[in-house]
């Protein structure tokens, strides 16, 4: 690799990283799999897969109230996972770490809570044009329920957030600002610390959608100083169906429960129920215990590689991909902000993204095509969708060249 950095560990053993992902050995139509759909979901290292197997083989029971040994083991593992996630997000307390199904549930939980406890006629919810549908629709519903209005901050041509527009639209009426940390479609990394500071000055709460940031960036919720931060396990080498909602404890205390039932209660009588303490107030029913263990193992994987190395690998791939694809006639990139994660979204003149994606698949290359659950953003750019290649720590420069060759071959067929 030619990208020299001052980091002491400039050479990362790619074979060692790749060997941890069994799926990378499989073939697609007799060809080596090139997996560039990481922004949709990343593949899983063997240690995550094994942690699930070990849990179900040796340690499974229901958590928290059991008196027997297995229940205590499962509880200890589950709560240990919460502690690992606390450290991962740099939160102050495990009370602030709520296990969810994923980012979508985290946002729904907050939007529901605020629509019961906080929002009303005349209030405003501020989001941006680059939000994923899961950071649009819950707020639309909250607005409909409460009479609040949804205000949308503009995105500039290069795919960065229009901070001038943000400043203009952030007013005393703004009750919550909900913005993505890293855009799934464009890769743009937003200045979330600054956004949260500006919001705080106006007295607004802040939620940061971290679905795409957690695989790439070291997250420090105290430094960002957001009220809520949400992540999904499956985007960061962990299992599906598990995620985390971080919330400042004083804010979570004020928020009413999302779902009700077992686990989340202190005392129940037919006259009155009192709710459990944080974080259990927000974890109704038997939680996804295996998922929590799996996401904690994914954190251990990320830490074993280190964010510095992850950044070095992915940033190199991003630059290489842009460099080689740029030479293709009629290519247009979407999302060229200076500060961005390893996502390349593009179209080629006269070629439909779905057609291109279909041919790439036949050549063993998994990319995503379509609107990437960001229809308003596609409408803004006036396109039906894009082809999106998103890179993870196990991808290689050689794979970028394979994609480049495959794109050229496909274009020849399709034009």
């Amino acid at each position, binding site marked *: 690799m030619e990208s020299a950095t001052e980091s002491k560990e400039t050479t990362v053993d790619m074979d060692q990283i790749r060997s941890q992902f069994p799926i990378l050995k499989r073939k697609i139509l007799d060809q080596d799999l090139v997996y560039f759909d990481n922004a949709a979901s990343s593949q899983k290292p063997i240690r995550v897969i094994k942690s699930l197997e070990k849990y179900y083989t040796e340690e499974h029971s229901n958590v928290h109230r059991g008196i027997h040994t297995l229940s205590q083991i499962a509880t200890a593992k589950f709560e240990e996972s919460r502690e690992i996630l606390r450290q991962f997000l740099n939160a102050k307390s495990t009370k602030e770490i709520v296990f969810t199904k994923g980012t979508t549930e985290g946002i729904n939980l907050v939007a529901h809570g605020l629509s019961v406890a906080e929002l009303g006629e005349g209030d405003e919810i501020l989001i941006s044009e680059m939000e994923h549908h899961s950071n649009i629709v819950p707020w639309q519903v909250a607005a409909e329920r409460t009479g609040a209005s949804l205000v949308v901050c503009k995105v500039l041509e290069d795919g960065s957030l229009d901070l001038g527009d943000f400043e203009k639209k952030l007013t005393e009426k703004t009750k919550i600002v909900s913005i993505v940390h890293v855009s799934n479609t464009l890769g743009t990394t937003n200045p979330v610390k600054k956004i949260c500071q500006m919001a705080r000055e106006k007295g607004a709460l802040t939620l940061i959608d971290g679905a795409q940031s957690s695989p790439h960036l070291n997250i420090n919720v105290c430094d960002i100083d957001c009220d809520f931060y949400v992540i999904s396990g499956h985007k960061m080498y962990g299992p599906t169906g598990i995620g985390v909602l971080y919330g400042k404890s004083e804010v979570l205390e004020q928020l009413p429960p999302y779902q009700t039932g077992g686990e989340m209660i202190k005392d129940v009588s037919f006259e009155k129920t009192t709710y459990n303490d944080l974080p259990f107030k927000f974890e109704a029913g038997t939680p996804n215990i295996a998922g929590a263990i799996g996401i904690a193992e994914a954190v251990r994987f990320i830490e074993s590689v280190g964010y510095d190395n992850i950044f070095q690998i992915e940033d190199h791939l991003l630059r290489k991909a842009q460099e080689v694809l740029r030479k293709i006639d009629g290519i247009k990139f979407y999302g060229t902000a200076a500060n961005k994660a390893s996502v390349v979204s593009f179209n080629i003149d006269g070629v*439909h993204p*779905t*057609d291109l*994606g279909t*041919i790439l698949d036949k050549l063993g290359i998994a990319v995503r095509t*379509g609107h990437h659950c960001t229809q308003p953003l596609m409408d803004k750019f006036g396109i*039906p969708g894009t082809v999106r290649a998103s890179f993870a720590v196990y991808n290689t420069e050689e794979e970028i060249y394979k994609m480049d060759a495959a794109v050229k071959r496909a274009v020849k067929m399709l034009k």
Partner: protein
Amino acid sequence: MTDTIQEIEKEIVDEFSFFPEWMEKYEHLIDLGKNLPIIEEEYKTKDHLIKGCQSQVWLHAELDGDKIKFTADSDAVITKGIIALMIRVLNNQEPKNIVDADLAFINEIGLKEHLSPTRSNGLVSMIKQMKLYAIALQAKLQDT
């Protein structure tokens, strides 16, 4: 006398058997798309869009005597090829035969297994829409 749906299906299966490689199959499909009976501009409206496809597909059907004539278009060339195949099979057929067609050729030429799930769903929506048109036009025929 038009060939029956089964006869045309068989013809397509034979035709595709000349292309064992997926790449050639797709090239052939793209070529077929170029001969698609294109929908009139006036019908290229939201009402004529088929839901469930990643690409946009417009489909129109009308009676020509007691047979149905389909016209269509898409912004994606592979999709256009698939519609062209469907239209080749179902065009100029009586509504009843369209409703009853099992369209087994799709599996036989390996289209369904080779198309991504989203596209397969698009194909399903496309067939459903063609059959809905046939049901509606059949009712219209019986009324007159």
